[in-house]
């Protein structure tokens, strides 16, 4: 057991739960549960069209079927999996590239600093959709391409945030104090800088997760996401568009789940901010 482990325990006990965090976790967990279950069990096969076209709820189909006779609930479950994968994948890419780039940019000085800042601003201004189309053109229309495109676009946003946060921490006395006691730069970054930007960063990453899910739905809607027969919420919306007046369930169901997941992670982000922010934590303890 290291020194840190011994010291850390009481903090966990003191950490409070926030109602927002709880609500957010519940909503997110609901979708996550659907996604996890879809990995091991689905009511019907993804390409099972035995259900009859646009059947209503009931008769072995919980939410009815789509215009090709596929079970809607099965598609929703697969869609949940894809949404969660898209969110996690994009955020992972965004975090890895964004944090690395942001920390490096924060240390850059003079013209290099200006250049990097301008480069990040241009990347952020570059439309995600256009980037996604480029990636899809270069590779193929798969979930991986969509995730890569979204992740790259978001890494610029994360990098810009990290650059500012790191710069602010580097100006603090405790960094100078660590430096005066002979701590090397890498150790200072790992020991002092990253922990101090972590609360803000993790809240932002949670928000990025929600945005990534929305972006993936948007790309799928345009046919740039996961290919059939894997259903994505975005493509379900697109397919149900023509029959919305006669069979609204096909469009409403994925729409509602999309809202549940995005609102869920946003609430989680809000709740995390309350629990992690050193300022509020200071006031509580």
């Amino acid at each position, binding site marked *: 057991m290291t*020194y840190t482990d011994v010291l850390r325990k009481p903090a966990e006990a003191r950490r409070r739960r926030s109602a927002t965090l709880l609500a957010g976790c519940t909503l997110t967990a609901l979708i996550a549960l659907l996604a996890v279950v879809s990995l091991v069990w689905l009511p019907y096969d993804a390409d099972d069209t035995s259900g009859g076209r646009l059947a209503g709820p009931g008769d072995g189909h919980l939410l009815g079927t789509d215009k090709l006779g596929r079970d809607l609930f099965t598609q929703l479950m697969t869609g949940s999996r894809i949404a969660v994968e898209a969110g996690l994948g994009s955020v992972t890419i965004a975090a890895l590239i964004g944090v690395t780039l942001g920390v490096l940019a924060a240390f850059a*000085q003079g013209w290099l600093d200006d250049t990097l800042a301008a480069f990040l601003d241009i990347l952020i201004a570059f439309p995600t959709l256009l980037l996604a189309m480029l990636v899809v053109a270069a590779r193929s229309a798969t979930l991986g391409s969509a995730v890569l495109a979204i992740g790259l676009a978001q890494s610029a946003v994360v990098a810009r945030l990290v650059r500012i946060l790191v710069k602010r921490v580097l100006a603090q006395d405790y960094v100078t104090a660590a430096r005066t006691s002979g701590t090397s730069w890498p150790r200072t970054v790992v020991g002092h800088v990253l922990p101090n930007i972590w609360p803000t960063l993790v809240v932002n990453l949670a928000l990025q997760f929600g945005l990534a899910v929305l972006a993936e739905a948007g790309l799928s809607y345009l046919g740039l996401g996961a290919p059939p027969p894997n259903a994505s919420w975005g493509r379900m919306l697109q397919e149900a568009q023509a029959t919305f007046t006669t069979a609204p369930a096909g469009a409403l169901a994925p729409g509602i789940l999309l809202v549940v997941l995005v609102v869920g992670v946003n609430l989680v982000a809000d709740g995390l901010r309350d629990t992690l922010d050193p300022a509020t934590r200071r006031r509580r303890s």
Partner: protein
Amino acid sequence: MTLLDVRGLTVRTDDGRTLVDDLSFTVDSGERLGLIGESGSGKSLTTLAVLGLLPDGMTVTGSVELAGTQIVGAPEKRLTAVRGRDAAVVFQEPLTALDPLMRVGRQIAEPLARRTGLRGRNLRTAVTEALLRVRLPEPERIARAFPHEISGGQRQRVALAMALACEPSLLIADEPTTALDVSVQAEMLELLDTLVREREMAVLFVSHDLAVVAAVTDRALVMKDGRAVEEGPVLDVVGAPRAAYTKALVAGARKLESALDLRSAR
């Protein structure tokens, strides 16, 4: 033996202002030098320059030799080796000088582990001892606390323990008592004095407060607008100031003192 040899130190900003102008002084090992001056006189910049820690956008010329190592223009790697081992700093604002998200014990453990190579249980014992040495009650509890959970005086003791954990040959104290209230100030000065004497450490004590400097140092250097105005044994500087600026400083301190005497006499 000369521990710190500063010669012709000049610090300029990129836009051409001179913040420290041709400053020269030495600190022998075991000697205690006070650096006196009002805010903006370049005292703190001097201490940062001694460790090669000046902020970006400032250029240094001259020579700073710390324990035989030239600091001005030295590569980062050499500076990291010197910092902590040859000189450590106690800063003015103890709240900002401690990492708000790191437990106090770990902040002391870091330099301690680097110097001694201790780990695990031994390191924890050493941290407790370090906290006891700066006369902190309940060292185990304080080691587990975050900086915001302890008082200002305790924080400054922790900062002192951090600096001492490096066992530096030169302790740089940058206004270490300014942020504390008067009663805590006296205790802190006394503690600093004792600990430094025990270790025969050299001290560079930076303050705007004449009385404080006179209490803990042997020699004093008075600075104004980045220049040395007067230098000599601290009691001479305070008792019989030669430079007009020092006279004004001393007179100011006297005036305050007699005003306070008057009040307490009433």
